[in-house]
């Protein structure tokens, strides 16, 4: 299958994603410069983490206007898989491809550490190799991961089984103390109604090989490959 990794000015996890999809999974992978207007031949697009446009004004606020974003939208409308990780998630929110918005972490600090995530649904192309209720250890690294959606949106997300990951303790309990950023209902990742656009704050690409001491993140990439094949 073929992955495309969108590179915005200020993206900095682009190469990390490439390393996983190309070197670890052995799948064809290409970088896509943000000024690209046409995309073809891709099965899955990754909007990587980083600080597009320095995160100035608001995270993702300027990147959403990159020429490539129209193509991303078309690609998703055609059913293609899109995964936004961290800054990628923030861009998807700003672009309106996913509902809600990101606020500053409650601590107002950037936080980089491993957190526990409970898998809330396995009926998505991104979690089909995971068990519902499974608890994953995956790192976060962000200053703006405080997910906000109004009550109506939140109700819809729940009703449509669109919350993929919640921050929990090691046993899978979504306690307030396990919430690293103040996110509503401990939400760490959500999907769109058509179930082909995922946004998540934690970084699965940072824990996908044994030398880094953690392979939990690989399961998300494996799910994508399984879905496409």
């Amino acid at each position: 299958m073929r992955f495309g990794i969108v590179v915005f000015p200020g993206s900095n996890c682009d190469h990390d994603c490439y390393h996983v999809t190309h070197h670890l999974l052995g799948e064809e992978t290409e970088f896509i410069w943000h000024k690209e207007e046409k995309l073809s031949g891709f099965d899955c697009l990754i909007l990587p983490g980083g600080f597009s446009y320095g995160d100035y004004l608001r995270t993702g606020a300027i990147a959403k206007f990159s020429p490539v974003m129209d193509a991303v939208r078309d690609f998703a409308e055609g059913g293609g898989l899109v995964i936004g990780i961290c800054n990628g998630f923030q861009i998807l929110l700003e672009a309106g491809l996913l509902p809600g918005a990101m606020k500053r972490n409650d601590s107002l600090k950037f936080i980089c550490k491993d957190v526990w995530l409970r898998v809330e649904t396995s009926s998505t192309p991104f979690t089909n190799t995971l068990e519902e209720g499974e608890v994953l250890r995956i790192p976060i690294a962000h200053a703006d991961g405080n997910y906000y959606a109004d009550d109506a949106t939140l109700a819809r997300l729940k009703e449509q089984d669109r919350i993929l990951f919640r921050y929990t303790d090691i046993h899978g309990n979504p306690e307030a103390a396990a919430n690293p950023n103040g996110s509503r209902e401990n939400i760490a990742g959500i999907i769109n109604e058509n179930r082909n656009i995922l946004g998540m704050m934690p970084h699965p690409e940072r824990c996908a090989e044994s030398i880094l001491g953690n392979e939990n993140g690989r399961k998300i990439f494996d799910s994508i490959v399984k879905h496409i094949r």
Partner: protein
Amino acid sequence: MQEPAITEEVIEQHGLSPEEYERVLTILGRQPTFTELGIFSVMWSEHCSYKSSRLHLKKFPTEGAHVIEGPGENAGVIDIGDGLAAVFKMESHNHPSFIEPYQGAATGVGGIMRDVFTMGARPVVNMNSLRFGKLSEPHNQYLLDGVVDGIAGYGNCMGVPTIGGEIYFSDCYNGNCLVNAFTLGIAKADGIFRGYASGPGNVVIYVGSKTGRDGIHGVTMASEEFVDDSEQKKPTVQVGDPFMEKLLLEACLEVMKKNLLVGIQDMGGAGLTSSSCEMAGRAGTGVELDLALVPRREEGMIPYEIMLSESQERMLMVAEKEKEEEIHAIFKKWDLEAVTIGRVTDDGMLRILDGGKQVAEIPALKIAQQAPKYDRPHAESETQRARRSLDPSGIAVPDDLEEVLKILLDTHNIADKEWIFEQYDHMVRTNTVVLPGSDAAVIRVKGTKKGLAVSTDCNSRYCYLDPYVGGMNAVAEAARNVVCAGARPMALTDCLNFGNPEKPEIMWQFVQAVEGMSAACRALGTPVVSGNVSFYNETRGEAIWPTPTVGMVGLLHDVRRFMTQWFKKEKDALFLVGETLDELGGSEYLEVIHGQVRGQPPVLDLEKERKVQETVRAAIEQGLLHSAHDCSEGGLAVALAECCLTGPGPHLGAQVTLDDDLRPDALLFGESQSRVVVSIEDKDLDAFKEIANRVGAPITFLGLVGGKDLKIELQGRSLQWPVEVLRKIHRHAIRHHMTHDTLD
């Protein structure tokens, strides 16, 4: 702004002594213009010319088979095999950080990264070495908060992981915090770029941010003591733009990869002045610039201001005329503007024009060659000597030694630094194999089997008591930390933070420290490949403790054989490599428990140090050890506690018996050097002992790993602590102070 006339007062304001001004007259053969005076003043400032330190820095060993570039370039370069090189350097941003902690620290990080990518290396590691007054002072909390925020704000945005560092708190830094930033990058060994303005006729190109009135006189500020109103020196503060720097980084690396440049140098302190002077000076050429072409952010800037501006995120490049267009195209792709502002000439002159009108003309080489160089008087003071005397019989052994360990784990110098490094992205680039929290951090080098271990270290209390021994210890400890991660120490960079060098006792500290460091470098085979000197760290005549920080880089041939400091397995045997001596002088224990900063700091036997390191490294390389942790502040007891309570868990205790007749506090909390606690499985014991025997390092069996408590038996006493209790104290101390949050 109107150009003032050159009066005695103006000369003095520029920090030039009458003799130095005489020298300017000789070089020029006439009176300088105002712009020229500005250029001389920054080029001959302490910060740029190293006029007080140059003579002594020569004492550092700087050569080795693996050294590709030693001091003198923008950063040092060593060969790490596989056709790759590690490029690294450390630099101070103390004064700006004291005035504006966020921006001061941020621009410090931005500056050091430019030093590294200017050489063609992609930065892959950041570290920082910090010193503040005690956190009980709200102002120090404010400084720490801002500095950490600034380092995070810049480094995280650049996508360079900050994987290590150190931080200490002491009253001596109350009026003068230290912020030293370290960056390491990876380059092709045959693709190193240098700051040469070679080839007359070549064009000089300016890229990056527009020039504003930022930091004019920033360099001279770094060379002046703080007076009380220095917090008023505000408008010179520079604001960092990490997004701009990220674009610059990518664009510069792309231009270099296509081999389009002759030379390149970042505009750091002293901006356009030092970059153009140095590039011409190194190449023995001249450079002619037309300032009217320099992109500007503010209106009405005069040539003097443009030459001295320290606006951040700017680079100066030299290229052949034919390559100009291709270069411009690459920068355009990154939404950056590259502007040709001058050319290389063959007359050796730095010639500055303003719209065709000449405003300065100085022989470029002479600025550097004839820069003042001082052999400043240095002598030990009486008070300095008196500090080293300590009568141990006057120091009572506390009854409650269990409590002492708890107090030490609670002191901010020993406590967990998680609140700090959690704010740094230490995982981006997915290379970090050992995260912050162990003796040294380790990254893998993608595309090879290798790894690099890095650590920054300096115990300034030791340096305060005996700068020679303190300097030795800084090098030895940094090397030891890197060894504990499984690496062979290769080379180091330094940042020498001292008071006013015009005072003989400060100069004495400096000379002693440099000599001590040099001795250790020789013994351990780790040359100095780059560094930085920061003098005048004084407030109201009070100098900081001498703080010669070392940034050590080590190489692992097989990164899978990395090591961490925490216990891994029940029933592992515990050994001490090295020996505990009867030493209390200069210890954290002596200061925290007895309120004394005195005595002879721990001695360092370099031969023994080498053997200890060799033993530990060989044992790790052969896969014999499960953990290795050196003893530093707080001595053996703290080291053992850290082996129990750090790491991802589950956290294991230990039962230890200390058979020694030293006084119990020295045994537990003394800071004898050259000691490493290792844990090892039964089956590997013989092989381990064999190595120690062959190398000639003393080893002592301490006990066994296991259980939920740390238990230490000594001289009929039995001490015991639940690991979870110690862990909570250790993790809590700094976080609680900074956030008022409590952990679970």
